[in-house]
């Protein structure tokens, strides 16, 4: 069992990670609800985590997984701050629509 992962299986895992990451991006771009936008960023983290762990297994060293730990901490920090901001924005404009905040137009 301590054989490193083969290329193809690695590619499979990377496929899944990439799909989830891309779905996160699409979600980020399409959904107009602020919270869901941040949720999609979380999903991007998730996609990345899968690839990291797959690489860690592929290269038989733990760096990948420790990085997932760091990813988790970042995700947590980001979620806390983001949600705080979202609530603040929500209080200001009573709506969660991302379009409302477009004064910075060129």
């Amino acid at each position: 069992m301590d054989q490193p992962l083969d290329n193809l299986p690695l590619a499979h895992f990377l496929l899944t990670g990439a799909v989830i990451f891309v779905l996160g991006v699409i979600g980020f771009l399409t959904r107009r609800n602020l919270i869901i936008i941040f949720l999609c960023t979380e999903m991007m983290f998730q996609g990345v985590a899968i690839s990291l762990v797959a690489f860690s297994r592929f290269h038989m060293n733990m760096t990948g997984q420790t990085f997932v730990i760091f990813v988790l901490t970042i995700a947590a920090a980001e979620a806390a701050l983001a949600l705080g901001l979202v609530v603040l924005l929500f209080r200001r404009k009573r709506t969660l629509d991302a379009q409302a905040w477009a004064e910075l137009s060129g």
Partner: protein
Amino acid sequence: MTLELETIKWIPWLPALAAVVGGVCCMRKSMRNLAAPACILSILAGFIITLGVQSKVTVDSPRVFKAFTWIHIENFAVDFSFYVDPLTIIMLTVITGVGTLVAWYASGYMKGDRGYARFFAAVSLFIFAMTILVMADNLFLLYLGWEGVGLCSYLLIGFYYNKPAAVAAAKKAFIVNRIGDLFFALGIFLTYSHFHTVSLAEVLRSAGDLNTNLHAGGQGVFDLGAAPSVVVIPFLLMLGAFGKSAQLPLYMWLPDAMEGPTPVSALIHAATMVTAGVYLIARLLPLFALSPYALPIVAAVGGATALFAATIALCQCDIKRIFAYSTISQLGYMFMGVGAVSTAGPTVSATGAIYHLFTHAFFKALLFLTAGSVMHSLAGQLDLRKMSGLSKKMPITSVLMLIGCLALAGFPFTSGFFSKDLILADVVEMGRSNSPFATLYSVLGIVGVATAFLTAFYTFRLWFRVFTGPEQYEMGSDGHGHEEEGHDAGKAGHEQAHAPKSGETASAAIAVEHHHEPHEVSFVLMNLPLIFLAIGALGAGLWESKFGWIHHGIETSSAFLGYIPKTASDAGEAHDIHFTMQLISGSIAIVGIALAAWFHWLNRPAGERVARAFSGLVKVLNNKYYVDELNDALIVRPLRTLADVLFVFDSLIIDGIVQLVGFLPRALGMSLRPSQQGELQGYGLGMAFGAAFVLIVVLWSLNLVAMH
């Protein structure tokens, strides 16, 4: 008394001085009346000098007096110098002689007018320009005189500048003259580029003497050693002459020029300026002989204009317009005369043209001035139909006008008779000679005779209608210059405001402040010069046929230096042509006069009946063949619309392109603006696109690298 030939130098400068004096007089109201004497004296002095110097000017090489160098660059040298030969003397006599008399008349005619000083300043400037034109030593100076005269005619036609019609007429005159002047200028350029000089003496010398050219032209054999462009010179100069002398293509300005004061019409548009064209061709005859076709064309245009103008004059109602068209017609005669130069002629036929020019100056000036007197007394009334039977009120004027009309019609033994007949004789004689254009000249002969008849008819139509028949008249309205608003009160002369005598048809129709009916004009100021003119009109012919002064003058003038006059035998045979022609033209004149008497004096209703019969023709002639309307529609209107179109084109298209180029950077900036709407996801999308694009490029290049 004979004067030193040098003194001829002073002739142009005296009127110039008078012009300056006149100009100064304009400024001061008080010195206003000083301008007239200055002008008259300066022209009179010129006349005296011309007479004094007459005998000195002999056949040997003509004299050149240099005042100062005008333009001198590289090898193009033009200076202010005068060229005196018998032809110049003849022209000077006409200019200064008629000029003095007209100026004298004008001092009476224009009295009380607001622009009195301005008038005489312009007249003296005109005499200065005309004398320069006649005495110019080179073509450039001649051109200065040429345009200077054009300017003075512009100023004088537009003298009553508050009348829009006068301003338009002045503008028209100047522009049409300018068109002629352009061709004249191009002719000068061509002469310079070909002969490398513009001085008359050298041009005439290098153009070869008249005889050889005429002979060559005569036989149709024509070797052109020189460049072919030489042939074009006569045609260009010809067009310039036609422009100035109101010949067919460019004549429309002369009838309108009658808007100016009558003395102007008499002096400029009858006697002097319009004859400049004839003088030019007479002066440069050898140059014209360079091309075989030039002189016949001149004659043809002259003949056509004569007939054309005579027909129009038949049905005009305005006295001055009739005389204007008759001037054009007589000028046509002169051009016919100068065009019919041939070795076969009995005498040098150019004499005919200059002789007619000389006599025409006198009797046409007389006619115009008498018409002026009529206008003067009828407070500006010029319409033929509104006056008749004035001889009782204005006996002297009617007699004077009768003399003028007789001379114009060519009544036997009047001056007009001799000069016109000489031209007809030459033309007919050319017709029978062996030159290739013989047929053309014989046709012109017939045209000449027909025009003589028409001239006699319309002249006496006018005279009988005005002076004979029942006495009825309608006063004019504007009183030309007198009744202008704001004219000074306390003016001497014509202020008799007395009630109109109860003539059969009192002129109640027009309410005029000054009710007075026709009266004889003041004798000393106005009628006396007319008497001198009448003497000239009658006597000139007899005096010339006895002394042959003009004939001798022409023969010895520089144009004819190499010209060998006819041998005795040919002269004899030519003499009887001369006699027969005199017979024919005399009888024609008498028939014309009789016909005019019948229709317009004895049996006016018959005249009306005939007019009604040809009503269509009369209407056309009355409207001058609609030439003005045609000219306006075909040239002026399209040119004006072209100007408007170009202006719009210029401000839209060319300016548009420039503005477009200016707008480009701004357009670029505006196109990029939408990408910065401020939405969060807009930027996200941008970033995603960017990332994808970069990845693709990297992949593609990696692949590329891998490929080879």
